């Protein structure tokens, strides 16, 4: 998918600098603290899996990174530059970060092709014919070329989510955020979506994904973060977190998943 081609000019950072860095990020709604001093580093070309119970703050963390939410304290750095600083051009930051949502959020009034080419054409000013040619090529790779002219409601959930992923990577983002992208899918459609994410990893896309698919996280992630009540309780390679969890709460969480047949 050639998404690992260098992003917008100047996006490449100094060697060793992680693509994404969170420094003691704190975020609350009213009186309830949702993220408590979360610190995290996501090196280039790696996949970070966020795991944790429902309500542990995974979605909030991703929304903060994409500046859909404002952090209360701490800082978020993209390629070493703080994006939570005042006077940062938020639209410019969002242009460099792709997001895939649990509920797809495709634009229902646009065809698949228009969904994918909207941002390249309107935001990145790519001429229509080139944007469409690139979109069609991406669709063809996923075997979706014949659906280019279809409206999203004519697609299966798995097809919609794959289109949503294409829409997010069509602008060649520096970082891709995926929030439980298979949670709304029928079980037999999960595989086709995970396959796309695997391909993206092959091509070097830097990703952060919140997921309940533990087998997938174990397989594809370079780093696993266990979030519990807004705290990164445990962080390490899949082998460390799944194989030898240090914290009791991680063990409890994994045991509950095992009992539910999810691991």
């Amino acid at each position, binding site marked *: 998918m050639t998404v690992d081609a260098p992003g917008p000019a100047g996006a490449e950072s100094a060697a060793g600098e992680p693509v994404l860095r969170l420094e003691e990020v704190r975020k609350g709604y009213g009186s309830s603290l949702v993220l408590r001093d979360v610190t995290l580093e996501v090196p280039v070309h790696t996949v970070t899996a966020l795991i944790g119970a429902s309500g542990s703050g995974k979605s909030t963390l991703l929304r903060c990174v994409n500046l*859909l939410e404002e952090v209360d304290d701490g800082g978020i750095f993209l390629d070493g530059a703080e994006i939570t600083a005042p006077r940062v051009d938020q639209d410019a930051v969002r242009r460099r*970060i792709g*997001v895939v*949502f649990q509920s797809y*959020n495709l*634009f229902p009034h646009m065809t698949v092709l228009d969904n994918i080419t909207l941002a390249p054409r309107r935001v*990145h000013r790519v001429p229509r014919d080139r944007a469409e040619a690139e979109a069609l090529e991406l669709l063809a790779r996923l075997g979706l070329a014949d659906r280019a002219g279809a409206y999203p409601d004519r697609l299966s959930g798995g097809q919609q989510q794959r289109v949503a992923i294409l829409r*997010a990577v069509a602008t060649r983002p520096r970082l891709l955020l995926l929030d439980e992208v298979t949670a709304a899918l029928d079980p037999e459609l999960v595989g086709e979506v995970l396959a796309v994410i695997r391909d993206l990893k092959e091509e070097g896309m830097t990703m952060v994904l919140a997921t309940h698919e533990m087998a997938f996280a174990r397989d594809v992630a370079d780093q696993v973060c266990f979030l519990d009540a807004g705290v990164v309780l445990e962080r390490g390679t899949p082998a460390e977190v799944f194989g030898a969890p240090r914290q009791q709460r991680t063990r409890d969480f994994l045991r509950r998943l095992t009992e539910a047949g999810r691991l």
Partner: protein
Amino acid sequence: MTVSDDADDRPGDMAGGKGEDVTGGPPDVKATPAAYVPSARRIARERYRRARTRRSFAVAAVSSAATAAVLVALVVNAPGWQRTRATFLNAHYARVALPKVLDGLWLNLRLLVVCGAIVLVAGLLLAMLRTLRGPVFFPVRALATVYVDFFRGLPLIICILVCVFGVPALRLSGVTHDPVLLGGFALCLTYTAYVAEVFRAGIESVHPGQRAAARSLGLTTAQTMRHVVLPQAVRLVVPALLNDMVSLQKDTGLVSIGGAVDAVYAAEIIASRDFNYTPYVVAGLIFVVITIPMTRFTDWVAARMNARQSQGGAV
């Protein structure tokens, strides 16, 4: 239609269903050579459905006839019926009034088209102003809100009276005294407020996830509005907008209070000269007649959009 599952599974039931297919029969499907013989169960089901349709039809016909008879009897036996018929339903005056009323109607139609166009554009602009965020736009938002609150509450007839008689009284130089323009202006003032509310409701009912998706792609607030929110919002409110246009069409008749000779005023001229109210009835019926197609069109658009959005099935 609940029989569609049969039709889907076994195309080619044309041969079997033909001839006896009255109402509620299977939808036409492409004939294929495979001979399909409907099961006894299906035949029984369809016979039952036809019987029920016939029965409903009979019940509806009898009940309508009875209701009509009672209404006619009530009206015709009313003590003042002869007088009423002479003053309101007089064929001679109807013939005299019709050409004049139709002349006046031309003004109503022009008002409808011009005011309708202005109202739709202004209403949309006003609705968008109300969604602007940020402290800079506070005065704009506040003004838009005050405007909508005021003109939605103000009775249209008072708005027209104030515009038509109040504006000329100011004796401002260069401002028109034409009752048609001033009346049309009053219509625009009031209807822009209605239409702005319709658009705002549409904008707010677009799912927030759509906005989040657009912003996360890097689209600006304005681009998100233009490419993602508005196209969906407008689709949602088309039926409500057409409704307001039907209503505007009727209310163009109110410009007559300023002396503009529209269909209503044309009727009034004849009525007050000859002391016969038949011209009003003629004008009223003409408004009804031109409103009905618009109402049906509104229903049709609404039904079509609903059908596209949800596959309701047999219910």
